[in-house]
């Protein structure tokens, strides 16, 4: 909402107030002022002049040489390129060394001809193109004939004004009108308010004699009034009216439309003007539209209505979409002589849905949606009639045609001062509360120590006690509220077990050299299931903004890989990222997708990079696996996690493993398939993803101290020749099974698959550690255990090297 202070001061005394101070006061007590715009900023020395003589520029086909009278001894020559320049016009010009738009205009020559300044368009004077009257949109602005020559044009154009830009929250629909803002400002300043004059003469003929109004859809249109004005002369609005509209951000059109817009701004009550003759039937019927019923709206668009849309008809066909936009065929034109002014109360939800259905948001619909003041329907119509008589020379038929079943009683709220004070933590007296509410022009009575309040109907947001608490608090001042902390029982706060473990996992991974990444949950349909751990239906947006962000992810990896590619293509060759986040699978009983927390990681480039010592260790499968193993160790899962060869789409078939927890697959790790690497512009890249909830849910054994060994352990190495496909884990299992309880540790210490080995064979060497906490082992005991191991291995087909 744009508020002209000149306009506002018609209703409330603002004398002696700086615009910035007023803005601060308004902001601190209720409505945020988002901008203070001085219209004359950057403008200096602009003057009203009259063009006395025009000559074509000898050297240009579009420039004219104008002799302009500024009421000085001599005429001033100004070269002008506007197409609409003409002799006799009263215009605005910047004089030499004056400023427009902060730029200095000097005396100069245009293609050899002297030009003492510049004749201005409104845009050049800082007015937005979209509010400039169409007539002057592509040329200079022409002032009314009666404007005195030599006058300061800042005054003549009303640029000696300041506009406050209000950022309105949806509850304050009352401030979508100049009067509403005036009430607010008057309350802040403890000033009185002056309402506009609506009195006017009316002719003997009654409006009812020429117009019938019938409302069929009473529940969504509880009030409809129409005034009829005859003999209207359509024309340009007076300058003051045009200035008011432009300051409010509305483009002036003609006097009748301008008046309806002016009152919309002044009262917040939308009005619509029909051409009485174009209605053709002398009748207005308000009803719900028929499904598929067509209407051409005044913006020239053909539209199709549905059965929930409310329409104004002439008894036969729709002539306006109620509260949204008028119809093309009943619009006021230059030829209109009799005007019907509609002032009505339409149901907010109906208007909101209709505006949404038609994709048509208007100043009118914005106000109806949030609720207009039931008690302004009549005054707004009367004010329109008054202005039509005054400005457009109209003859107002007496009375109005009225349908009225609207409840106009104010909301009644009873509040105890104790309630107000206990909610705020303050001690405001009853009298102070009454004073504040009176400043807001609420009707207040006190009895039995309670406040009995009638909230004015313009304040549709005031309904309950808490609303009164807010009104009192904001005008009393939030600065006055003390700072306390909640009293009463206090419990220890904290993370729950799940959250605590998740943080631990974050810290462990960061400590392992992986940066935490955050990527988007929305992805393309195509990527949504790539690398997914399970097959489940996807969740898609109803109306995505783009295909790229249309579907919820079922795997974190695609976006995480994209992030790695982003880095690699910017000379960051070694990248290690992880992300913990939700994936969205299928649907739960509640109808929501099942959200599962996953952990994913991607690594590429060098793991160890120590340039001057020449140590470079490329990331490989076992680097990533090692990081996971220490994570699992941290979570006491080492003995419960196993790995098995796996095939995962998009991963290298020979370098991929499933991760199993207690034998159940919870994730995978592996190298990206070379084709995927190439497609993503990556070199050797390793990825993993697992179901985080599974590893967090797995219980952890209590930590109990095991005595530090007092007796030595004995180690034996064993080298085996086995088939190349034999798994180290299987060999280890054989060893452990055979080793008995003296065997404490089994570690791979060598792997050889080179030339010296028979084709299809490899050598794997283990160190076996034997130990018992009770005594020093004897050689015999170790030999006996070790022999069993060797026997078991041999039996399994391994050959001792």
């Amino acid at each position: 909402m744009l508020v002209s202070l000149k306009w506002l001061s018609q209703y409330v005394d603002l004398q002696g107030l700086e615009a910035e101070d007023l803005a601060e006061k308004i902001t601190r007590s209720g409505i945020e002022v988002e901008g203070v715009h001085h219209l004359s900023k950057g403008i200096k020395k602009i003057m009203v002049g009259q063009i006395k003589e025009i000559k074509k520029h000898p050297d240009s086909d579009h420039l004219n040489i104008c002799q302009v009278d500024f009421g000085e001894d001599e005429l001033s020559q100004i070269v002008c390129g506007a197409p609409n320049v003409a002799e006799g016009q009263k215009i605005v010009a910047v004089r030499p060394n004056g400023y427009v738009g902060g730029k200095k205009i000097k005396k100069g020559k245009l293609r050899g001809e002297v030009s003492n300044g510049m004749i201005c368009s409104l845009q050049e004077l800082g007015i937005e193109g979209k509010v400039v009257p169409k007539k002057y949109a592509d040329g200079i602005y022409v002032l009314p004939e009666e404007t005195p020559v030599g006058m300061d044009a800042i005054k003549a154009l009303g640029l000696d004004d300041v506009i406050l830009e209000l950022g309105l929250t949806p509850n304050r629909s009352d401030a979508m009108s100049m009067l509403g803002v005036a009430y607010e400002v008057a309350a802040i300043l403890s000033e009185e308010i002056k309402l506009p004059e609506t009195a006017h003469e009316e002719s003997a003929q009654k409006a009812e004699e020429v117009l019938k109004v019938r409302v069929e859809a009473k529940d969504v249109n509880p009030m409809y009034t129409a005034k009829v004005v005859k003999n209207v002369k359509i024309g340009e609005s007076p300058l003051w009216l045009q200035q008011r509209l432009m300051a409010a951000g509305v483009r002036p059109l003609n006097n009748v439309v301008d008046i309806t817009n002016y009152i919309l701004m002044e009262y917040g009550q939308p009005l619509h003007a029909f051409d009485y003759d174009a209605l053709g039937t002398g009748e207005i019927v308000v009803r719900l539209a028929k499904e598929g019923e067509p209407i051409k709206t005044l913006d020239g668009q053909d539209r199709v209505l549905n059965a929930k849309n409310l329409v104004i008809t002439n008894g036969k066909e729709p002539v306006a979409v109620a509260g949204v936009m008028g119809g093309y065929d009943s619009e006021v034109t230059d030829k209109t002589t009799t005007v019907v002014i509609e002032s009505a109360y339409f149901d907010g939800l109906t208007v909101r849905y209709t505006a949404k259905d038609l994709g048509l948001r208007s100043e009118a619909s914005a106000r109806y949606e949030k609720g207009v003041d039931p008690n302004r329907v009549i005054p707004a119509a009367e004010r329109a009639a008054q202005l039509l008589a005054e400005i457009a020379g109209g003859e107002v038929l007496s009375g109005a045609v009225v349908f009225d079943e609207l409840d106009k009683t104010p909301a009644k709220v009873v509040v105890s001062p104790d309630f107000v004070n206990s909610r705020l933590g303050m001690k405001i007296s009853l009298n102070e509360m009454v004073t504040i509410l009176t400043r807001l022009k609420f009707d207040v009575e006190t009895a039995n120590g309670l406040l009995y309040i009638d909230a004015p109907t313009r304040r549709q947001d005031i309904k309950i006690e808490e609303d009164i608490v807010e009104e009192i608090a904001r005008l009393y001042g939030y600065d006055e509220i003390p700072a306390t902390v909640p009293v009463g029982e206090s419990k220890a706060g904290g993370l729950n077990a799940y959250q605590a473990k998740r943080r631990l996992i974050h810290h462990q991974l960061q400590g392992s050299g992986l940066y935490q990444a955050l990527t988007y949950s929305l992805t393309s349909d195509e990527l949504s299931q790539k690398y997914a751990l399970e097959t489940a239906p996807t969740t898609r947006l109803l109306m995505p903004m783009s295909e790229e962000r249309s579907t919820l992810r079922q795997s974190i990896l695609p976006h995480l890989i994209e992030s790695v590619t982003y880095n690699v293509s910017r000379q960051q060759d070694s990248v290690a990222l992880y992300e913990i986040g939700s994936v969205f699978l299928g649907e739960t009983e509640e109808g929501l997708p099942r959200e599962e927390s996953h952990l994913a990681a991607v690594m590429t480039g060098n793991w160890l990079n120590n340039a001057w010592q020449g140590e470079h260790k490329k990331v490989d499968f076992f680097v990533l696996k090692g990081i996971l193993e220490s994570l699992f160790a941290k979570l006491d899962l080492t003995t419960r996690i196993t790995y098995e060869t796996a095939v995962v789409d998009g991963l290298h078939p020979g370098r991929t493993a499933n991760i199993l927890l207690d034998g159940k697959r919870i994730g995978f790790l592996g190298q990206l398939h070379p084709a995927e690497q190439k497609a993503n512009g990556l070199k050797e890249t390793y990825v993993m993803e697992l179901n985080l909830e599974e590893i967090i849910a797995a219980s952890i054994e209590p930590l109990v101290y095991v005595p530090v060994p007092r007796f030595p352990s004995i180690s034996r190495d064993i080298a085996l020749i086995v088939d190349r496909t034999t798994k180290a884990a299987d060999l280890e299992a054989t060893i452990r099974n055979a080793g008995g309880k003296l065997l404490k540790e089994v570690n791979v210490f060598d792997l050889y698959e080179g030339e010296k080995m028979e084709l299809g064979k490899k050598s794997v060497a283990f160190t076996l550690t034997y130990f018992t906490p009770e005594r020093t082992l004897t050689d015999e005991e170790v030999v006996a255990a070790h022999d069993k191991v060797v026997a078991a291995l041999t039996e399994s087909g391994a050959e001792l090297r």
Partner: protein
Amino acid sequence: MAMIEQLTQLKEEVIEKITATENIKQLNEVRVAYLGKKGPITDLLKGMGKLPVEERPKMGALVNEVRAEVQHIHDVRKATLEEQAIQEQLEKEAIDVTLPGRPVKVANAHPLTRVIEEIEDLFISMGYEVAEGPEVEKDYYNFEALNLPKGHPARDMQDTFYISEEILMRTHTSPVQARTMEKKQGASFKIICPGKVFRRDNDDATHSHQFTQIEGLVVGENIRMSDLKGTLDIFAKKMFGEDREIRLRPSFFPFTEPSVEMDISCFKCGGEGCNVCKHTGWIEILGAGMVHPNVLSMAGYDPKKVSGFAFGMGPERIAMLKYGVDDIRHFYTNDVRFLSQFHRTEE
């Protein structure tokens, strides 16, 4: 006498040889050659049998004397040579200590996580629990339970990604509040709710269709607006510095009444006016208010007996203000050159 002369000559010869040695190896050779079992001094002792009996003790003593003297000289030389060897080794082993150390790979949390954890921990210390909820929500929890019935104009404040008429991507973390209240069944509690939220916005320097929020909610008997103010004051001072001031401005949120926005005095200029605070001296940090009675009663609380306060803020905004980040997209691009800047600690 020949033997004495022989001994003296031998002594001089050995001393000369010992003195000439340059390392332990040479010294060992000399030692073995002269003092060993097959060396000339031993030979001399063996040859004593040829001497007259009365000369033998004298001569024996003399030989032993020489032997001891030579041994001593040998020991001194040995010590010198050993010391020399250590010196040489140390010199050889000297390194350039200014060369860089071997890198230890340690990464760090995302800056938004850093901000969120800091806020969580602060409120945990004041007795709050951390509550979380689904990113895909029911219209009921995201809007209706928060006093935003269907068709409410305030729904326009949050452009929504719908999945169906009743299911949507949550536009704020407030549905967690609604769910928590429902679950707590009338009990008093304090929670802080961090999470991802979604709005129908085109991504640019200041907008992101996905971002994070963190909200707080306290419900109990006699919770006052002054408690909200005091709590926010503690938050502002811990998060942005002990000398921060806060101010509350009236605002509107459908789920709170009264509703306010909280500004803090600018941490860069201290209120003088600068680019960070757009020359106002104040920076808008969060929205807050007293829980609307409709929200309480919809979750089964009696608003006559129980009240509450709520507040919510955007970690992106806080991180951008705190660290001077100029483009919200940095948080979702995952450029390591950006992420790694949030490694170190702060005062």
